[in-house]
């Protein structure tokens, strides 16, 4: 049994909230550079160049890549041999968000209720916290701020098992096509297939945490990822919807066993500012 003071979690969340918003992961940068090589549209190329220039300015000047510094989404992997001391875990996380968003000059984008007064909470809390209990005596924290523009274009469908792979493809292509320029393409498409309504949505979001372009270990799923990426990029939407070959940088699919009657599919769309940073305590 290892005792960890929740203050340590507050400190890490504070740091990760700032760093994730300033420094784009290098695998995302690399994917943008690779697609720039292949982009046929002159306006599309200029746009990808500006996007690359933007993340460089953010990295050098230590400023947010995007003004939408997101809702604070936190994935915790909590070792089952850890004993947390010094206060409430959730409060420790929220305190880290509060401090990070203030010290980092990040935008506070949370409202306290979704449909009546919509008053800003002024400190970007509450965080959205997903906790998994795992073997061991460490805590892994992944901080993944999520902006509204791409989240709003996400979708869920309770497909029939008989809809098959074709049904999944149609749902994904229709969703991306309808989203068009709104989610700030080039995008990363996180897809969850299987489980229950909440499980499929959660694994769709977890799929976005994978390194860009890294494929699923199951070759059948990996093939679907490849096929979907090609078909999405054949839509012609292009960088920012200006027309071009780079609509998505990657398609990541996670699957889970399902009920005999069900094939739920969730699509979580992520803009090119695909932010996430992690730490282990």
């Amino acid at each position, binding site marked *: 049994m290892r005792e960890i003071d929740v203050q340590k979690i507050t400190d890490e969340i504070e740091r990760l909230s700032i760093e994730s918003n300033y420094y784009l992961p290098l695998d995302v940068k690399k994917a943008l550079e690779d697609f720039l090589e292949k982009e*046929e*549209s002159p*306006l*599309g190329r*200029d*746009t990808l160049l*500006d*996007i690359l*220039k*933007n*993340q460089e*300015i*953010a990295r050098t*000047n230590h*400023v*947010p*890549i*995007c*003004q*939408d*510094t997101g809702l604070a989404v936190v994935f915790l992997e909590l070792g089952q041999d850890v004993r947390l001391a010094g206060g409430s875990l959730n409060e420790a996380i929220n305190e880290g968000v509060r401090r990070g968003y203030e010290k980092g*000059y*990040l*935008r*506070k*984008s949370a409202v306290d209720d979704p449909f009546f007064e919509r008053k*800003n909470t*002024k400190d970007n809390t509450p965080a959205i916290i997903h906790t998994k209990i795992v073997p061991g005596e460490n805590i892994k924290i992944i901080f993944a701020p999520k902006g*509204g*523009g791409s989240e*709003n274009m996400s979708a869920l469908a309770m497909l029939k098992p008989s809809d098959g792979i074709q049904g999944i493809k149609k749902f994904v292509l229709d969703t991306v096509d309808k989203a*068009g*320029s*709104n989610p*700030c393409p080039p995008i990363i498409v996180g897809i969850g297939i299987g489980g229950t309504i909440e499980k499929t949505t959660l694994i769709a979001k977890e799929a976005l945490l994978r390194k860009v372009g890294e494929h699923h270990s199951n070759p059948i799923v990996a093939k679907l990822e490849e096929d979907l990426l090609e078909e999405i990029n*054949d*839509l*012609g*939407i*292009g960088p*920012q*919807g*200006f*027309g*071009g*070959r780079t609509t998505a940088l990657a398609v990541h699919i996670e699957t889970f066993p399902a009920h005999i009657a069900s094939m739920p599919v969730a699509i979580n769309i992520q*803009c*090119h*500012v695909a932010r996430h940073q992690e730490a282990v305590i």
Partner: protein
Amino acid sequence: MAKIINTPLTDETAKTLRAGDRVLLNGIIYTGRDAAHKRLVEMLDKGEELPMDIKDQTIYYVGPCPAKPGQAIGSAGPTTSGRMDAYTPQLMDAGLKGMIGKGLRSKAVVDSIIKHNGVYFAAIGGAGALLAEAIKEAEVIAFPDLGAEAIYKLRVENFPVTVIIDSEGNDLYKSGKELYKK
């Protein structure tokens, strides 16, 4: 090659711009998101004077980050324009000429752009750090209680945008996609 354009926009300027043109904007523009738009339209409904003279002006759909010491403004990229569609025709009837945002617009907005010789520009969504560098001054002129959603008066220099919908109703989101669809 980008066209260098000054604000406020005139009818003549707007008519020279075509969907797909890259433009560098210079001069004064105003910010406004959902909450500010709602208030502006409520003021128009009540016959009240708006906090700025809106004739020929351009509104940038943005809620910036707080400025760090030494910055005019924090990161400041566009938000999704479609959320402003419900308010746009009424503001264009009152004199608004240009809009900067990202994403699709409704048919009512396109019709209003044609009717008023307007123009809809896109700035690069997610490029908030790059775009903030073209904003030289920022001052809150209305609704300070809205925080990041207040109306700011911005002075911009060579602010990079692309014409999406021109005064004839041509739409780059449609034409660009057709060109590269397979």
